[in-house]
């Protein structure tokens, strides 16, 4: 417990103290802290136990690359079960817990697994747990795995998505990104600048450089202010997580700390004319024995905690490095009163090291850390030659509380790679750098391989278009080259590559030995880089170790594909407002209010909210449906059919065109007359049915099924535009413009008589399957004699706004309002099919007994040729028939099959509609039965989940076979 807050250093607001809880204990931090910096400032060392071996682990990094500090965080009763502490801005009242360690962090019941590590090599589970079978072991393995615990209550927060278009999107607001944004804004372009941190400045926030004579942090602040003043859109706390096609970038704006009570992450989809990638670089650790102890950190993280947060993570620090960058940490620690020893693998560390030595650091050239020790943390580190082959080669043991390392820098090329860019291996930097890009972007700063601040600023300025004065900084002395060094060449001790998934150098060795040598096999077999940090600090090291073990170069060994997201992103925000009723909006009938008033049970049918039935007080749904179906035939019924599609087709070629589209002949239809028609796909399968009306010589009105209207319109447009473009015909979906109320049954003429209308409703003027236009109650209207119940029926359409008034008027005349469920019985009694219920994606017209047009119609209508393929002509196709259950009181479930008798049961087809008919006083069914029409009058066995019954195959028309009631 040695973390100390150093006075007067850092960008935290010491005037604003924040109280938070860690493992139930109350601690304090400051505004500007991350949860990680606050924990370190309070001396918290162990934050979790490792995934596989249950070893204690501490905070390792200071940014998105953190592998260990994954915590269960609560704030304002909202929970993130896998929060990365280094990216969580500290807030007052926040509560955090470790997600591992049972019964406690310091004593883990499974820590004994660490002693068995040699029996649990990478992929051990593929080699055992097979007898008697995996199910015996799986529940325990599952319990051992997993990180945090997800809450089971629905998340009711509100998420949203925003879209933006900009000239230049700059990703990363470090020195290079700021320089790029500044130049782009000076060039008069619209600029958006995003950074995952709450504050802009990137490495300037923990550097000590001056730019244009200002301290780096001040320059960052002033540049940010001038960008804001110029109208640039600035998005801090925003991660660019994905680079999609055509310069579309996905941004995740984290607003969990926003002052507005609106506490949700927000997704941005940004289309940028140009993207500037200034995404920086992530330090990678040196790999050495026991490099997973709490207190082993990245050198840059130690520096960042000190300079940005004023936290001295240890008083005595051993640094181990292969490059110059760790020396900035060394000198900063010394200046803050720490003690520093540096083990540098380079034989001649060079002038930067000499300067650190002069400032008081002990520098061990040609050396590396060979071991660390301490209870629940670090008490000492052994230093020895970089080429040591045994821990016994250690030359000195140094007491310390932190071991920090730097193995070089890994440019953040994730987005570049996602955009389709190709990478190249740079020997000098020992890093993958962008090579050839594929989209409109500029590269700037350390992600492009620039090392010094001066170069980063210059590359940023250029990437932004070189407008305005370039920012100036002192040129640092040339660094002494990095010496690639991937792990200590000791075989005995464990050296960790992937801290979160507990993958060691030995595991890579095992993968190599077992032929999992492709990088992807390595990843999948060992799980290297598959943890929630996505291998940001481990992938390159693992790749290098595999290259070394297989005698290949790193580029020969390959690199893994970088996939979105750069850091894990909120699922809620990805879905945004596509939730609940906005996921798939429901359509409402124009007379919705009237149905509510009539007590309708509303239900969704094909996207529309429609009355299922209108239960009376005390009535069940089934009772209501029976009553309605009975009364429609004995009294009269009222039905809202407004959802039925209405597509107007007009033009000189309307008749010719529709005749080429529809299965049935429609060109000889007389104006004012209706015809029932089928619409096929080109494959011969029935797509839709409906009634077509010829309004005039050059004008038709189609009535597709409610849920197929958009599809039918699309089909008409496709055929017109691609196959028959020269025809004079146009289409217009007017479904929403009309309300259609159907009235039918014995009393229908009495009810019609109450309508004030100029339309002649007499049978002579308006016979069955005819249509007339005029005015009803002073409103523009049309009336169609068409029936889906088998009763004399009139469909009255008025402009949508008058639908409710028409409904009210008709209802007042005493007909029985009926819903879809009742209609289903009525149309079923008549053997009228319902598309998608009685038919499916296999049904052809002859299956319904409608083979006339195929024989009679000469034109080459859609789907015609497919009806004469061998399968179309197959005699044993399933055909539409009626079925009368042997027990008149038994209603088979829809989906019941008919089967062959005998020992080998085989399906002959299935029931598509079934109900008790109040009119017949018994049950009936419709179905599709193999060769059914040839078996009329025969009985067949029905099968439903093991239970069998019998039914007689019959005509599908059960009621009013002659159709007299249509005219009655």
């Amino acid at each position: 417990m040695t973390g100390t807050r150093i006075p007067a250093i850092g960008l935290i607001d010491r005037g604003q103290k924040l109280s938070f809880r860690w493992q139930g204990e109350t601690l304090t931090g400051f505004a500007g802290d991350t949860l990680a910096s606050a924990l370190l400032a309070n001396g918290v060392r162990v934050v979790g136990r490792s995934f596989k071996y249950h070893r204690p682990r501490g905070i390792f990094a200071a940014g998105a690359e953190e592998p260990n500090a994954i915590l269960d965080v609560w704030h304002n009763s909202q929970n993130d079960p896998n929060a990365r502490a280094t990216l969580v801005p500290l807030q007052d009242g926040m509560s955090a817990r470790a997600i591992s360690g049972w019964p406690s962090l310091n004593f883990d019941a499974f820590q004994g697994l660490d002693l068995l590590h040699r029996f649990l090599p990478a992929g051990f589970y593929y080699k055992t747990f097979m007898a008697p079978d995996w199910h015996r072991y799986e529940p325990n393995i599952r319990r051992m795995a997993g990180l945090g615990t997800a809450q089971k209550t629905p998340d009711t927060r509100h998420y949203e998505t925003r879209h933006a278009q900009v000239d230049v999107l700059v990703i990363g607001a470090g020195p290079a990104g700021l320089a790029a944004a500044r130049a782009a804004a000076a060039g008069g372009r619209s600029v958006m600048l995003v950074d995952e941190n709450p504050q802009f400045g990137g490495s300037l926030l923990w550097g000590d450089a001056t730019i244009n004579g200002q301290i780096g942090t001040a320059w960052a602040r002033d540049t940010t202010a001038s960008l804001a003043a110029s109208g640039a859109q600035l998005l801090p706390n925003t991660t660019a997580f994905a680079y999609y096609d055509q310069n579309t970038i996905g941004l995740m704006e984290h607003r969990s700390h926003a002052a507005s009570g609106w506490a949700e992450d927000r997704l941005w989809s940004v289309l940028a004319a140009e993207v500037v990638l200034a995404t920086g670089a992530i330090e990678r650790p040196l790999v050495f024995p026991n490099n997973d102890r709490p207190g082993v950190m990245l050198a840059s993280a130690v520096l960042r905690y000190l300079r940005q947060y004023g936290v001295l993570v240890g008083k005595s620090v051993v640094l181990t490095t292969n490059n110059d960058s760790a020396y900035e940490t060394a000198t900063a620690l010394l200046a803050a009163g720490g003690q520093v020893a540096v083990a540098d693998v380079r034989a001649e560390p060079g002038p930067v090291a000499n300067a650190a030595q002069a400032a008081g650091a002990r520098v061990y050239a040609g050396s590396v850390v060979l071991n660390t020790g301490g209870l629940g943390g670090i008490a000492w580190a052994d230093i020895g030659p970089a080429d040591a082959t045994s821990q016994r080669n250690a030359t000195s043991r140094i007491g310390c509380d932190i071991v920090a390392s730097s193995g070089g820098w890994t440019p953040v090329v994730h987005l570049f790679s996602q955009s389709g860019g190709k990478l190249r291996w740079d020997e000098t930097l020992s890093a993958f750098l962008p090579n050839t890009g594929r989209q409109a972007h500029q590269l700037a700063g350390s992600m492009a391989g620039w090392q010094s601040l001066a170069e980063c600023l210059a590359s940023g300025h250029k990437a932004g278009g070189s407008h305005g004065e370039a920012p100036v900084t002192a040129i640092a002395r040339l660094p002494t080259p990095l010496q690639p060094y991937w792990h200590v060449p000791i075989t005995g001790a464990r050296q960790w590559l992937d801290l979160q998934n507990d993958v060691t150098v030995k595991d890579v060795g095992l993968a190599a030995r077992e032929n999992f040598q492709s990088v992807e096999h390595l990843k999948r077999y060992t799980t290297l880089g598959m943890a929630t940090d996505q291998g940001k600090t481990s992938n390159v090291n693992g790749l290098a170790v595999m290259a070394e073990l297989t005698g290949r170069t790193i580029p020969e060994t390959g690199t893994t594909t970088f996939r979105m997201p750069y850091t894990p992103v909120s699922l809620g925000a990805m879905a945004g407002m596509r939730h609940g009723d906005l996921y798939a909006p429901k359509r409402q009938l124009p007379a919705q209010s009237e149905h509510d008033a009539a007590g309708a049970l509303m239900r969704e049918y094909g996207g529309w909210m429609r009355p299922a039935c209108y239960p009376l007080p005390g009535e069940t749904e089934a009772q209501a449906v029976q009553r309605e179906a009975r009364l429609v035939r004995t009294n009269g019924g009222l039905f809202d059919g407004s959802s039925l599609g209405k597509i107007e087709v007009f033009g000189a070629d309307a008749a010719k065109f529709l005749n080429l589209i529809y299965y049935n002949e429609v060109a000889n239809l007389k104006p004012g007359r209706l015809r029932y028609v089928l619409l096929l796909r080109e494959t011969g399968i029935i797509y839709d049915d409906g009634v077509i009306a010829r309004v005039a010589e050059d004008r038709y009105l189609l009535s597709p099924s409610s849920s197929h209207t958009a599809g039918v319109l699309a089909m008409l447009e496709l055929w017109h535009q691609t196959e028959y473009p020269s025809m004079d015909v146009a289409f217009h979906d007017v479904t929403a413009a009309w309300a259609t109320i159907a009235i039918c049954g014995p009393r229908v003429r009495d009810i019609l008589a109450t309508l004030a209308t100029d339309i002649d409703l007499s049978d002579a003027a308006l016979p069955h399957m005819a249509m007339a236009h005029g005015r009803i109650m002073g409103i523009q209207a049309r009336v169609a004699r068409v029936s889906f119940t088998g009763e004399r029926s009139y469909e009255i359409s008025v402009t949508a706004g008058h639908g409710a008034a028409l409904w009210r008027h008709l209802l007042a005349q005493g007909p029985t309002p009926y819903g879809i469920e009742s209609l289903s019985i009525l149309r079923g009694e008549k053997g009228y099919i319902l598309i998608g219920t009685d038919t499916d994606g296999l049904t052809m017209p002859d299956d319904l007994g409608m083979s006339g047009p195929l024989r009679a119609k000469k034109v080459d209508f859609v789907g015609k040729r497919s009806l004469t393929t061998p399968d179309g002509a197959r005699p044993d196709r399933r055909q539409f028939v009626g079925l009368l259950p042997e027990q008149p009181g038994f209603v088979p479930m829809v989906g019941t099959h008919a089967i062959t008798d005998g020992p080998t049961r085989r399906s002959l087809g299935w029931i598509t509609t079934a109900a008790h008919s109040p009119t017949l006083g018994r049950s009936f069914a419709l179905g599709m039965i193999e060769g059914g029409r040839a078996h009329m009058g025969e009985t067949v066995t029905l099968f439903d989940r093991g239970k069998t019954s019998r039914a007689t195959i019959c005509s599908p028309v059960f009621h009013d076979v002659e159709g007299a009631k249509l005219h009655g």
Partner: protein
Amino acid sequence: MLNIPCPHCGPRSEYEFQFGGEPATRPIPASEVSDAQWSDYLYARTNIKGRNRELWCHSGGCGQWFLMERDTVTHEIFRTETIGSGTIGA
């Protein structure tokens, strides 16, 4: 995400469009073609890996079908044109 230049409306977001398949030439008269030829028209697709010719519809906009030449690997859009203008090769 694709930013598709509708030949009628100009560039619009992918959200507004609907893919309509590889254009296939309908054999005429259909009644005279063999089952195999009909099957080839109905079902067989070249399914090119690379520069592909496709039918698209600006369904959330002007509602017009058009032809697009697009790379099925990189998703690069080379050009779009109205049907019948005939420069996107058959």
